[in-house]
């Protein structure tokens, strides 16, 4: 007796990943060529450097329904543009702490340093992040923030 799939498809999070072209995107490529799988709902946007990611992009992603946003860059000291990732580290430290202050679970936002040689680490990070966000459930907080009548 084939078990009937529950009609509510169990929740798979929608993850937006910003990867820097020189390190983490190459790391993602290596994870691909080494066939190290991670869930399909992680989608990667290529940026020249992690310092290109504007907080606007992170917030826009949440507004458009992303359940988790992860930003990957080169290890501090290895940045192709010398100091790019140092600025990213400060910006995201402040942004993520601020979002947490606004009541958005900190685990929905993440920053990981992945080098071009770390395909293994890239796939492990993505698997772990999807697991964390799945446990957190759907991101309801960043979309319907207006007080509804009768609330």
């Amino acid at each position: 007796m084939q078990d009937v799939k529950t009609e509510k498809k169990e929740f798979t999070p929608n993850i937006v990943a910003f990867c820097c072209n020189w390190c983490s995107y190459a790391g993602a490529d290596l994870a691909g060529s080494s066939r190290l799988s991670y869930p399909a709902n992680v989608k990667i946007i290529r940026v020249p450097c992690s310092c290109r990611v504007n907080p606007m992009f992170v917030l826009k992603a949440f507004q458009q329904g992303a359940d988790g946003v992860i930003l990957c860059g080169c290890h501090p000291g290895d940045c192709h543009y010398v100091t790019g990732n140092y600025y990213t580290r400060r910006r995201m430290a402040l942004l993520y702490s601020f979002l947490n202050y606004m009541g958005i679970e900190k685990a929905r936002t993440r920053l990981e340093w992945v080098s071009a040689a770390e395909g293994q680490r890239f796939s492990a990070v993505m698997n772990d992040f999807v697991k964390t966000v799945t446990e957190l459930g759907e991101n309801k907080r960043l979309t319907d923030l207006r007080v509804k009548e009768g609330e």
Partner: protein
Amino acid sequence: MQRIGVFICWCGSNIAATVDVVKVAETIKNEPGVVFAANYQYMCSENGQQLIKQAIKEHNLTGIVVGACSPRMHEATFRKAAEEAGMNPYMVEIANIREHCSWIHKDMEETTEKAVVLVRTAIAKVKLNAPLMAGESPVIKRALVIGGGIAGIQAALDIADAGFEVDIVEKNATIGGRMAQLDKTFPTLDCSACILTPKMVDCAQHEKIDILSYSEVEEVKGFVGNFNVKIRRKARYVDESKCTGCKICMEKCPAKKGANEFNMGLDNRPAIHIPFAQAIPNVAVIDPEQCIKLKTGKCGICQKFCGVGAIDYEQKDTFVERQYGAIVVATGFKPIALDNFNEYGYADNKDVITSLELERLMNAAGPTGGVLLRPSDKQHPKVITFIQCVGSRDSSGCGKPYCSKICCMYTAKHAMLIREKYPDTEVHVFYIDVRTPGKNYDEFHRRAVEQYGVDYIKGMVGKVYNENGKLMVQGSNLIDNEQITIESDLVVLATAIEPEPSVRKIATLLTASIDTNNFLTESHAKLRPVESPTAGVYLAGVCQGPKDIPETVSQASACAAKVIGLLVKDKLKTNPCVAQPDENMCNGCGQCANVCPYGAITYVDKEFRLGGGKTEIRRVATVNPAVCQGCGACTVTCPSGAMDLKGFSSKQIMSEVEAICKM
């Protein structure tokens, strides 16, 4: 209205195996703005590119999206194809549906759905692409080689022979590097100095080559075509132009107790010394930690005896700043420290030595004048045991996970030379696997076994301990399934090698990526093995991975070929995806210049018409497109969004985010 063509690649079966390429092409056909969608087995092939060119002409496309492998692989190919068909090459976007999709997900439905989303995202981006023209930047016709070992020497000679100026920056007092310390070299057993020193002399005499010995790279600015490098010339306390290398000072110097690094510390050397006879430059150097004059101010004997007055105790580090078009990194290697391997008793027994120390003991210029004598009691060793893979192939954290590649060959070389020079000596070698691949290598190893009777034992040594003057080497013999103990007079450890520790600082200076074992990462393991991902930086020798002299020399010549290919050009195409300020919105607040790593942003006062004949002078930012590398740090610091990045504009990335989130 945009007229976009979409091409879905099968990549043979790499994509088609798990992604329903036909369905993807069908679904994408009715995306707004898409006027042509096709799928083909090999988009990067000639016919694949032909398909693109034809479609561009037939459907006069304004932009194309290729769903294929990573843009890091074939973005350039598809851009060139588009350009040949008359379309601006920057109106091409790649959707990575192989490494980021087909290769890592199993379920066909899931991967096809993701492929559609990735292609849709690329379409959203290409709709906002603007045609860009690559700029140009001048190329400085001079190369820098960091490291004066055989790799650096070979690269410098090849580049100089092509007529370009080359500077070699060598950390030690002389060039020659690790090879200068070797006695003989495999597989031909010719004497290392005999084949190395002529090349060193060529370097010294070559009018295009400038050797900066006892110097280190201090700072690197700029980028491919025009690097600006600051070099620290360490104080030698000897005037290079005067010293004739007569070595009187070495004889007279009273501070004799310095450990002679060249002989791996097996004997001593005076404070003022020339590392070895054929040193280039043949100029003395004073070790500041050991020289009595520099430490306490008394003595000064070498200055008295120097016939040409070359000694100068007041000498200070000086700095040299020069421009280069390309940089070759050839920083070489050193054996690892054996602190984690005390089971071999290296620290407590003088007669347990590393292979490099054995090289010095067998070398005529070595501490024992080429006669193989035990360091402890200077007796001739009757039984010598070699232990392979000490610290290599070790993933337990004590050593290095990789195979150091050269130890099997040099141990076979040592065993043969010993058996030939001292036939009555017993030689045993504990090995896990003998790795001697390639031309004449295995034959070389077999000669050691068959012709010279070296005893190769398949098994590993568990412990080396001293018992009444004899070195008891206890190990397993897996073939005979025994545990054996060999009473030896001398134990030689084939120690793992690691890159020079200073390479990590150089990698940071050059922003060249480096892996956890401190090897510099090449741009592509198979197709671009001697280039760093950082344009204009080339890798030769062990700094890129363990290798022997033949491979190092071929890598050095490969680097030279790449450098010559670069320096021949007068102009280099620069990346057009650079920052671009919008003057009407710029506050002139100066925050962007604070974060620009290349100093590409300056401010000017500009007159703006306010309408009604009134004008206003405002301070606005300007970007030098030749210097800007397009990282984008400034675009985020700019609150008003006046600063944007061509090719990766805020609007484009926002549209990509929206395309991804719209399930």
